[in-house]
């Protein structure tokens, strides 16, 4: 009798030990969920996140199970979808749009055992990490290329919302362009949407009518690229390689490469080492990359672009390095001064030389 009690106690202890071991490193496949704002076929922002999801699958094979919900509106619906995913036993959820910020934090508070990764937001919690890419580094590079390639000295910019992320991109591209071509002028059109092929095409046409011969965009679909191809001007792709939509028009694309980051974070969940962090990676870490440079670029322009990319990656060039004045002429950065991340994160002003005013 005594023997069997001891045995039972040992069994219970064994179970308890097994239980605690499970809490530390993950057993069975790690379940990874993704919430997308667009459809996986948008050929832009959401497409790139889904490519990264596939990279996670390729990396871990049977050790992960991934799932996603696409075209989730950024409000009450997002909160419900996240809750349902968390309830279904998902271990880590990537919420891949700025507008998912509050829903992510609300749901994360309800499910402390699930970890969340929110793209491009600024609110964190013990189980909510934020991550984004320094797209402005890429925009500085395409600014340089645009400055060299424009003949009318007018560059068009299709902007989504006047939020710091977008304003920072316009400023970086302008500084890049101006460093090559002091006469360059930027025409900015605000479309107030991340993805709407019709509006993006309208904006592209409006810019072309104003004499623009190079177009950049901060929206998600390749529709401006197709217009540029039709009209025989140049453009830059956004988020993914859009060369298929503008084989002659595309000079390069800024690529969002989320794959390595997603693999690293899923690995951390497997190892039980996940913790809440704030990641803002750029060209150096590979989160911002480029589609192959077009053969339409003269050799010196291509060489200059390659050199700038290498210098940014090496930490030798920072796009926001003084002297830079704000649009109103006041000093923002003194000679040699480099902007700090806090200022960049909240950037709500144009730099000197840009026309027009920020909508407010």
């Amino acid at each position: 009798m005594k023997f069997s009690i001891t045995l039972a106690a040992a069994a219970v202890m064994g179970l308890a030990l097994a239980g605690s071991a499970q809490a530390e490193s993950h057993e069975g496949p790690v379940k990874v969920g993704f919430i997308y704002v667009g459809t996986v076929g948008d050929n832009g922002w959401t497409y790139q996140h889904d490519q990264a999801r596939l990279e996670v699958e390729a990396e871990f094979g049977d050790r992960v199970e991934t799932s996603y919900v696409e075209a989730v509106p950024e409000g009450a619906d997002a909160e419900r979808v996240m809750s349902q995913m968390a309830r279904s036993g998902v271990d880590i959820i990537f919420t891949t749009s700025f507008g998912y910020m509050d829903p992510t934090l609300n749901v994360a508070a309800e499910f402390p055992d699930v970890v969340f990764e929110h793209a491009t937001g600024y609110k964190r919690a013990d189980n909510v990490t934020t991550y984004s890419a320094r797209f402005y580094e890429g925009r500085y590079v395409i600014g340089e290329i645009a400055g060299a390639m424009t003949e009318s000295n007018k560059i068009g910019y299709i902007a989504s919302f006047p939020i710091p992320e977008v304003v920072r991109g316009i400023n970086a591209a302008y500084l890049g362009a101006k460093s090559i071509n002091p006469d360059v002028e930027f025409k900015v059109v605000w479309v107030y949407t991340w993805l709407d092929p019709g509006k993006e095409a309208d904006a592209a046409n409006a810019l072309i009518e104003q004499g623009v011969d190079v177009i950049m965009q901060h929206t998600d679909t390749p529709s401006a690229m197709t217009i540029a191809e039709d009209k025989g001007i140049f453009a830059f792709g956004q988020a993914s390689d859009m060369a298929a939509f503008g084989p002659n028009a595309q000079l390069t694309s800024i690529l969002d490469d989320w794959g390595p980051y997603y693999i690293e974070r899923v690995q951390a969940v497997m190892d039980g080492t996940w913790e809440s962090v704030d990641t803002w990676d750029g060209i150096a870490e590979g989160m911002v990359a480029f589609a192959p440079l077009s053969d339409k670029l003269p050799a010196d322009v291509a060489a200059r672009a390659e050199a700038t990319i290498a210098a940014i990656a090496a930490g030798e060039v920072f796009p926001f390095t003084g002297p830079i004045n704000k649009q109103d002429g006041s000093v923002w950065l003194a000679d040699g001064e480099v902007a700090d991340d806090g200022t960049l994160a909240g950037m709500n002003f144009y730099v000197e030389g840009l026309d027009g005013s920020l909508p407010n």
Partner: protein
Amino acid sequence: MLRLEQRQQSSKTMLYLTPVLAVVSTMVVGGALFLAMGINPFDAIYLLFIDPFIDSYNLSQLFVKASPLILIAMGLSIGFKAGVWNIGAEGQFVIGALSGGAVGLALWGSTGWWILPLMAVAAAIGGALWALIPAVLKIRFNANEILVSLMLVYVAENLLAQMVQGVLRNPEGMGFPESRNLARNDPTSLPDFFDPLGIDAGGVVMLLLLAGAFFLLQKHALGFQIKLTGESPRAARFAGVKPGIIIAVTLGISGAAAGLAGLFELTGAAGKLTIDFPVGYGFTAIIVAFLGRLNPIGILLAGVVLAGTYIGGENAQFLLKLPAAAVTVFQGMMLFFLLGFEILINYRVIRVRRAA
């Protein structure tokens, strides 16, 4: 060659059965579609039609999604009965949320039980006035209300974009284009009523108005005039019904209902005005109104079924890897079958042999 011939008498029983037949046919054809996509059709149909109504979490979300659909569809059905086709409920929904939201934001910092009712009144008036634009244009110039109300949706959406960029923007929001969160502020937050089904104060108002619509259509003289106008405009004219009044009243009611739905969405589920605030309730409600046979009780059921397919559709996406578009196809199929069966009940298909 086939031809449709109107039946002398269409079966009443069949008429009431059409929604059921439509749902069953959707399950069968939709199931075949899922099978072709390599997805287990039984799992998919379970998730779309059964799970939303038995799982406690899903149930708690049911009326969050169904209430706005039912409220808007209720308003639309009154107009549809009179042959007044308001397709722009989405715009009235937005204007309602904007007007009510503006009142709430203007009173930011004040407290009192009267704030939320005042916002609701503003929303109803805002929605009604927006819907009266097509009414006036129709009465005065005989402009097609379908086109005018639809076009005004885009005007409303751009107005919303302008407002959240400008005067209604959250001064503490780091420049992001969105308003303050009205659901996180006691005086402007919609109280919950019955959580297990997700019925909030807006849901209660919706149910009361639904009862009101039932009374209006069944018992009230105005309801009779509305129905008469829809069924036989000439007879209505002889009976002394003024078509202009019917147009104005029905569009006004549907606009007010959509406006209220917008406010409830704003102060409940959504919380803040953003550019992406409208997610299509105003358009989906048209399906709900027809699926519910323009009858208040039918609309209640139809709203619940459609809300269920939305919630189930989200689950099916990540549990079965069903694409979002497949769910939309599924919902569209339901309306297609409903309208198709309706034709077959009212008309007979006959074979016409062409003389050589």
